[in-house]
């Protein structure tokens, strides 16, 4: 008999995953029996499972260990990312309920795929070997490819799905190849073992370097870093808006979870091998994202480019490395989840079937017709722009602060200038809402408490986490540290005076 105690099956920490997986299947089976017009129940079921998983994930904080024969890491890092992902998922479900009805989306597929993608994301966050990260990434991606194309009557939606799928498959190849090369270089796929194997003259090991580079490309695609970003605007524009929101937030968080754990935590010792590349990608991503956002007239495309730019800001801290940067990224992603989902929720609230109402010009005069909706949108956009004391500013400050401390002054200069330039396009929406007249958007339909709740929660998050960031940032910092090996923590604390 095999001794299974070696494999270390600890079920409690993976319960959130189990709950989500089970719920996904239940929703699928129940859902096929339910009419598309009555899919609300499925949505609530999904929401309930997400909330349960959220509560269970809270229990993981403070634990540490590696389970399932080294496949799963149980630490605050996983917990923090799981929480962020689940919050994003919950808000997505809330803003989907009416949207799914109105656009006659197939409820069973919609909610079960959403849950499956959440499952993949959580798996990425908890994975501690490269294969599990890959499985998580694929589970997430395949589900999202389909979700992007669920508006079957809208050609743009199909276009989005196909483009995303083709390019996604393309980039998956690079990621997998990278994993293979890393395995070739180190003889293991376990992150901890890779970390331990990173000794000696790393920069002359071609297998390792190429593997690193290819994995960087694979993750770069998922976080929409330039030049691997080309799919983003088309896909964001075509996909159902709640799914766009989920892609812009959930997928990004999960991809950064993988990115962070692989690069900053486990490949940290080899940082000399990727810092320069990351530097260039980060600078490019910020600049191109912002420059192109300026000329967009469609709000979903504008937010897509804005999402690219924000990935660039996060990459600034990733380039810098170090525990402070890690905490800053975790905090930023949490705040970004609230802010960006809030902005998309407003878009969802205002758009009409057949994609009418997603032009920035349609927002003209919104402030006089719907002052509260306009005010919420303005706050989300100002937070994205980085106006204190909203969370966007505090997060950006943490990111840049961390980079400054590691001496990446040039990158911070680029980042700050970009952030200043971004005022132009975020403000064009604010200007349209407050200072122009003529748009037609109005929420004339029945009041939709779920959607309003989503906006309200996002608003509270955006303001509260900004004004009182300390507990969240502390939690984020601890979470990041929990993913590092003890000797690294020691080294990091010894380094900072």
């Amino acid at each position: 008999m095999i001794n299974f105690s070696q494999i270390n099956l600890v079920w409690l920490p993976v319960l959130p995953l189990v709950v989500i997986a089970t719920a996904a299947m239940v929703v699928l089976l129940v859902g096929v029996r339910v009419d598309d017009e009555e899919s609300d129940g499925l949505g609530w079921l999904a929401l309930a499972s997400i909330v349960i998983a959220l509560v269970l994930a809270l229990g993981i904080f403070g634990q540490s260990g590696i389970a399932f024969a080294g496949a799963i890491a149980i630490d605050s890092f996983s917990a923090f990312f799981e929480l962020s992902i689940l919050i994003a998922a919950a808000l997505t479900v809330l803003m989907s309920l009416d949207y799914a009805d109105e656009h006659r989306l197939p409820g069973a597929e919609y909610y079960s795929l959403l849950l499956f993608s959440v499952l993949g994301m959580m798996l990425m966050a908890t994975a501690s070997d490269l294969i599990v990260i890959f499985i998580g990434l694929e589970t997430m991606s395949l589900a999202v490819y389909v979700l992007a194309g669920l508006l079957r009557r809208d050609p743009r939606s199909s276009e989005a799905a196909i483009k995303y799928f083709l390019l996604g498959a393309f980039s998956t190849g690079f990621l997998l190849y990278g994993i293979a090369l890393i395995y070739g270089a180190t003889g293991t796929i376990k992150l901890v073992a890779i970390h331990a194997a990173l000794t000696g003259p790393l920069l002359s090991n071609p297998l390792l370097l190429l593997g690193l580079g290819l994995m960087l490309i694979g993750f770069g695609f998922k976080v929409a870093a330039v030049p691997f970003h080309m799919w983003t605007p088309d896909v964001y524009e075509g996909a159902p808006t709640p799914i766009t929101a989920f892609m812009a937030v959930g997928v990004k968080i999960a991809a950064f979870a993988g990115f962070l754990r692989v690069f900053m935590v486990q490949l940290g010792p080899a940082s000399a091998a990727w810092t320069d590349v990351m530097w260039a990608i980060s600078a490019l991503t910020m600049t191109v994202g912002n420059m192109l956002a300026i000329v967009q007239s469609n709000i979903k495309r504008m937010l897509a480019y804005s999402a690219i730019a924000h990935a660039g800001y996060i990459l600034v801290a990733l380039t810098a490395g170090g525990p402070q940067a890690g905490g800053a990224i975790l905090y930023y992603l949490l705040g970004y989840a609230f802010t960006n989902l809030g902005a998309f929720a407003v878009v969802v609230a205002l758009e009409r079937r057949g994609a009418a109402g997603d032009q920035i010009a349609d927002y003209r005069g919104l402030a006089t017709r719907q002052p509260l909706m306009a005010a919420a949108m303005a706050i989300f956009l100002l937070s994205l722009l980085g106006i204190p004391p909203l969370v966007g500013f505090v997060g950006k400050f943490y990111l840049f602060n961390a980079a400054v401390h590691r001496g990446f002054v040039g990158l911070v200069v680029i980042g700050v200038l970009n952030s200043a330039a971004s005022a132009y396009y975020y403000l064009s929406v604010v200007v349209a809402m407050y200072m122009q007249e003529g748009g037609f958007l109005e929420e004339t339909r029945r009041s939709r408490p779920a959607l309003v709740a989503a906006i309200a929660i996002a608003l509270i998050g955006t303001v509260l986490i900004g004004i009182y960031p300390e507990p969240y940032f502390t939690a984020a910092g601890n979470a990041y540290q929990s993913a590092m090996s003890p000797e690294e923590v020691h080294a990091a604390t010894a380094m900072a005076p």
Partner: protein
Amino acid sequence: MTTWFPVVVTLIVAGLVVGVMCTINMLLGPKRPSEIKGEAFECGNPPSGSAWGRFSVRFYLTAILFLVFDVEVIFLYPWAVEIRRLGMFGFVEALIFIVILAVGLIYAWQRGALDWD
């Protein structure tokens, strides 16, 4: 660096050979195009219809379902061989695996993927 030198040499030689041969062919070869030569080659049969002809999407569904069970069998073979050593744990794991696949099958069935009409 030295270990990689032969590879580089090979690459260069390969590139040269291909390039030179293509160029020679282009320069020396006679060119007499005709309609028959321009036709698509389909195993000697006269070509008919467009290459973009349509198939019923149901073939695709069937193929996908086949693939799922194909993979299931591949996975279950080694499990069946080692079932005694894997014991109760292995049995439960395999059950979960089959249940998950079954959920997919039930879904496909309920959605009507198995009805040809």
